[in-house]
């Protein structure tokens, strides 16, 4: 059944939603809804039409809890989803926490999150052992210092070069 057939059931809400659901220990399902307002904002900011922008789902994974993406997500995978409004993620790992961002890439191929989903956990699919040791976390992301916001009031800007109103470039000399 195509979603468009049920359009009449969707009240005019214009809300963003990204929902993850567990199908099995190794499969997740996600559906999303990007509001017109968000699409307009994105196309305006990037000056590109929506169809030409990369539509990416970044799926984050962690052994334990996933309360904070920047701290807990030990690995992620990017999926280019195009015009799709839902997706199945296969060959995942049992007994892991997952969440996802819907976003795009800027011209530097940096990922810009636009919408974040809920956190789910895939179930175990084998017998528990007595005491499982700490598994090696795969490619722990180097914490970008700029991302650690809110350390002290002094360092409240996420960007060293940014000071209140504008971006200052490194080359500052004394102009006359």
């Amino acid at each position, binding site marked *: 059944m195509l979603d468009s057939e049920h359009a009449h059931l969707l009240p005019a809400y214009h809300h963003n939603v990204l*929902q993850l659901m*567990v*199908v099995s220990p190794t499969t997740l399902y996600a559906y999303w809804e990007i509001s017109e307002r*968000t699409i307009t904002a994105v196309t305006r900011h990037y000056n590109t039409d929506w169809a030409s922008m990369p539509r990416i789902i970044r799926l*984050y994974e962690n052994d334990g809890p996933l309360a904070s*993406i920047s701290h807990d997500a030990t690995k992620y995978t990017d999926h280019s989803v195009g015009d799709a409004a839902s997706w199945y993620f296969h060959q995942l790992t049992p007994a892991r926490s997952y969440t996802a961002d819907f976003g795009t890439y800027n011209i530097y191929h940096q990922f810009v*999150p636009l919408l974040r989903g809920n956190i789910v956990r895939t179930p175990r699919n084998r017998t528990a052992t007595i005491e499982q040791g700490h598994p090696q976390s795969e490619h722990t992301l180097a914490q970008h210092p700029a991302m650690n916001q*809110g350390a002290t009031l002094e360092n409240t800007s996420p960007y060293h070069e940014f000071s209140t109103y504008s971006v200052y470039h490194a080359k*500052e000399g004394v102009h006359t």
Partner: protein
Amino acid sequence: MNLNAQGYLSLILHAHLPYVRHADRDDYMEERWFFEAMTETYLPLLLMFDRLHDDHVPFRLTLSLSPPLLAMMEDSLMIERYEAYLLQLIQLSEHEQVRNQSRPELAALAAMYTQRWTELLDYYQACGRQIIAKFRYYQDAGCIDIMTCSATHAFLPFLKHEVSIKAQLMVGVFEYERHFGRRPRGIWLPECAYTTELSPLLQAAGLQYFVIDSHGIEYAAPKPSRGLAAPVMTAHGIHAFARDPESSRQVWSSHEGYPGDPDYREYYRDIGYDLGWGDTEEWEYIKPYVLSNGARIHTGVKYYRISENEQEKQPYNPEWARHKATQHADHFLYCREQQIKNYQAHCDRKPLIVSPYDAELFGHWWYEGPLWIEALFRNPRNQQGTFAFITPEDYLREYPVSEQVDIPFCSWGRNGYAEVWLGQENDWIYRLLHQAEDRLLHTMQHHSTNLWGHTAVAERILNQSIRELMLAQSSDWAFIMDAKTVPTYAAARTEHHLKQCHELIDMMEHRFYDLESLERMENHASCLTSVHYELYTSSLSSPPPMLLPDAYREDARSTWRHRKVLMLAWEFPPLVVGGLAKAVFDLSRYLVDQRIEVHVITRSVQGSPAYERMNGIHIHRVNVLQSTTPIDFMDWVFQLNLAMTDYAVLLMESGHRFDFIHAHDWLVHYTAKDLKDYARTPLIATIHATEHGRNHGMIEHDVQRRIHQMENDLTAIADQVIVCSNAMVSEVQSLFTLPPSKVSMIPNGVEIASFVQSSSEHHHANHRLQYAAPHEKILFYIGRLVYEKGIQILIEALPRIHSSVPNAKLIIAGTGPMKSELEALTDRLGLTSYVTFTGFIHDDTRNELLQLADVCVFPSLYEPFGIVALEAMQSGTPVVVSDTGGLAEIIDHGVDGYKALPGHIESLAWHVTEVLLHPEIAENMAVNALRKVEQRYDWKSIAVSTKQVYEGVIMR
């Protein structure tokens, strides 16, 4: 209970049908599921109970009855139609006896059916058609235990909100209570679908046990020591009984299971399908008994047994079948005895084997099923003491505590998880179901605090909307779509109930109550009478205060409304990077004093709440989605605006109506534009500084260009632009081509008497020693360390100042991108021992230093305002500033301070030296400066001016 038993067996029958009552028509094929199940399963079960009871044969089994099934059992329309169904069946069987006169075997079977169905009809009528009461009787008599099920057999892990799960559970509890006169102890989780989230909810509902599939125990952590021989407990003490795979296989399996035996009745040979092909007379005969549109159905008249040979079906022989059932029952019990013996060796308790099945398997799919069950209880092995039939409740009485483990997500569906209910055929339903859930919750939240109160009709509407949603949530629909049996029907049911739910919510939102529609819906979904909207509202926390618009607050009975402004500021205390945060904060709190309701939307700050009220201001802090990988600055600004816009829209949708939006600087431009478009609210923009000005008139880089453009756009879409100095007025008018009428000049302010002259001279003197010796003069700068502030000029001026005032010390407070460069400059000039970089300082330290200093210097190259100069003036310290921008407007040269040529080292050095060498002149200027601040720059009058600008905009 046979206490001498070595082990226990628990037979559990889960009886459930989706709600297939259709009030409008009587020719739905799906409705027949109910009639068939009644005829082939539920009534035969009751008849079996009666027979065992009469024969004094003890029996103990567990039966779950789902609320939709119970609703149909008690419904007068369904009762009426069922009786008609039975009568029609009896009639058909009588006709069959006649039609099959020449075939005695078939005629005998037809007679068997006549006799059977007549017996059922008599029984049904004899108990007043109230069969629920019969089940209750057997529970009260201690022969069976009845479990409940969730309201509409929803796949609970797939409900979006916890409160929805809770509602499904509680309605299951209440319906049960209504029928059986007590609280249920056990619940059949739909499809045995369990997740850890359910545990506390089951506890809150007062439930004590549920059933899961075997891998739920097998994969539990820690590994349960008794394996499948005993239940386990969740963290909340709820017991989980796991299905035994072996006993399950023997009954369920299509290859090796009992029901496939050749002597048993063949399900797929029914006269409803077999007759009338190529024979008009035969077709006319059977036609009244199939669907009105001619579609074939199962009538229930089946003459053949499964037979050894698929091609040649033999006539059914009831005696052989009955005999086989008895044999199979014996085999089953024998196997269980062996199993128990095996378990016993390793188990510290009497092992328990749990055998749950869909009730409808017995009688409907497997015609002889009820006979098999009866044979189980009549079998002499029951008296031998190896095993005893018990119920889970019995077991819990003997073993009230079991191992506590964490049970992973599991179900008894194909492959053990959720693929049956979430796949290509049915995944589309969940976004719709969740959306309805969201909407329903939103409505409940809204109306739970609604002062208008509820009329009885409004309550009925709310209740019915819940009912419709619950019916849409039945897991049966997704199951049917996966099985592809009647997927069109299932999809139609899902859509239909969702549509009704939305219609009802629409009624609530528009306050237009269509009674006729409501009544029609109530008649069609006349089930779940225990549903009450309090199920949703009582467990919901009331909406967060920030989402509560004025109209709904308890004390808002007055008709006079405040003006309401939405401030957009990228920084706000405690996040203070530059002057903007403080300016917006001060403006806001003084506007509050002017009886304006102020809401500020700003960025989230670690350690600060997402919502708070500070000095009467409503502060909303939004989260910007942090990526784990780096991101370009302008994209970050974009993300910030997305978050702010979404939040603002949420506020407005909750009922907040703002009279205007006040945006501060280009950083919030996107949001300002979007909100103006969305809400058509007047927009005021304050430009605190421009990119052009900051860069000395040069816009070179891409980023600078973009910022300049955004400033341009912001001033263009704003209805009024506010700047803080006349210099800025000229600047924005020319830069952005704004007509003079569009620009208002309102200076920034300081709070009068925010300064407390700190304690004693003595204290002062002591503190001063931290920075300089008593004879050494102190120069003080505070502000961001950026190019346009001109600190580098001041550092370069210091050697010249030293030639007249040796050992003068310079304290530089603040932080910024230029810090290292300034430090390097200091070093290069050999001034390291004379210059202190304090970094960021708190307000107290700042105020102290402002007072301690002998002169405060603000050598800006570009300064839209220069609020820090006001603060210095207010602290009674003489100031030397650049003759530029707002600073030039604040200071009268020689009267209340000195103005040096911007960027001019000698000029700056000369004026600072003058102040330091002539303390009486300095003192005089400081006194004048203080008076000026008090008279012209107090926030109160500035707030009044701002308010006037607001009013001016509204009037247009």
